[in-house]
């Protein structure tokens, strides 16, 4: 398939979590994914967007930028917030680690992104924001 790109920007409101994953699911459909592959991508998007809302912005309403690209048979995702950033990425990625146990966060967000996507890369700067890069080859 030829390269194809999309980009959406939306408010960091929890009701947009569903919107973000459904938008990406519709886009990735162009690659004829299996149901399981769609669910994997939806879960990863949901985790990244939820992180931006809860941790990046601390539930303040700001903007989240979601970019998706299809190249060959692979879906590439970029999810960016301009929030507080992550001080210690290694720590943040540890399963069960959370800075918000008060909100009953399970600390499994990054573990799920890693489990459901092929690759994940995080760029973050304190007080500047965070971008999550993920990709997954769609076998169909």
């Amino acid at each position, binding site marked *: 398939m030829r390269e194809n790109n999309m980009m959406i920007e939306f408010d960091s409101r*929890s*009701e947009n*979590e*569903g919107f973000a*994953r459904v938008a990406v699911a519709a886009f990735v459909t162009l690659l004829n994914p299996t149901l*399981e592959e769609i*669910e994997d991508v*939806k*879960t990863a998007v*949901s*985790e990244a967007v*939820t992180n931006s*809302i*809860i941790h990046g912005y601390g539930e303040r309403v700001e903007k989240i930028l979601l970019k998706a690209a299809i190249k060959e048979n692979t879906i590439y995702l970029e999810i960016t917030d301009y929030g507080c950033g992550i001080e210690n990425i290694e720590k943040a990625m540890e399963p069960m680690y959370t800075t918000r146990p008060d*909100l*009953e*966060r*399970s*600390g*499994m*967000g990054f*573990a*799920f992104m890693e*489990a459901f996507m092929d690759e994940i890369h995080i760029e973050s700067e304190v007080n500047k924001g965070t971008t999550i890069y993920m990709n997954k080859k769609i076998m169909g």
Partner: protein
Amino acid sequence: MNQIFQIEGETLRIMVPKDLDHHNCISIREMADSIMMQENVREILFDFQNTEFMDSSGIGVIVGRYKNMKCLGGTVAAIHVNQRIKKIFLLSGLSKMIMIYEQEA
């Protein structure tokens, strides 16, 4: 009390919505805890028959109820769990923590 929360004897059945994400977890957590305070609940049963999507926020809300019930000497279980949700349960270790019923007793 509404259709999402059903009291059956000492069991509180929570009809999990179509999507169990951070957005939907907030109200489930608050309602479940308030019902637990008012009623004599010994078991919380998460019923996934209408659920198509769940992410790690769902794990958080189930583990949270598990901790609360454990304090009260009660239990947490899940029922009507589809393959996808089962995968999430396995990956998170939740399947070792709570009972998963295949069908109604």
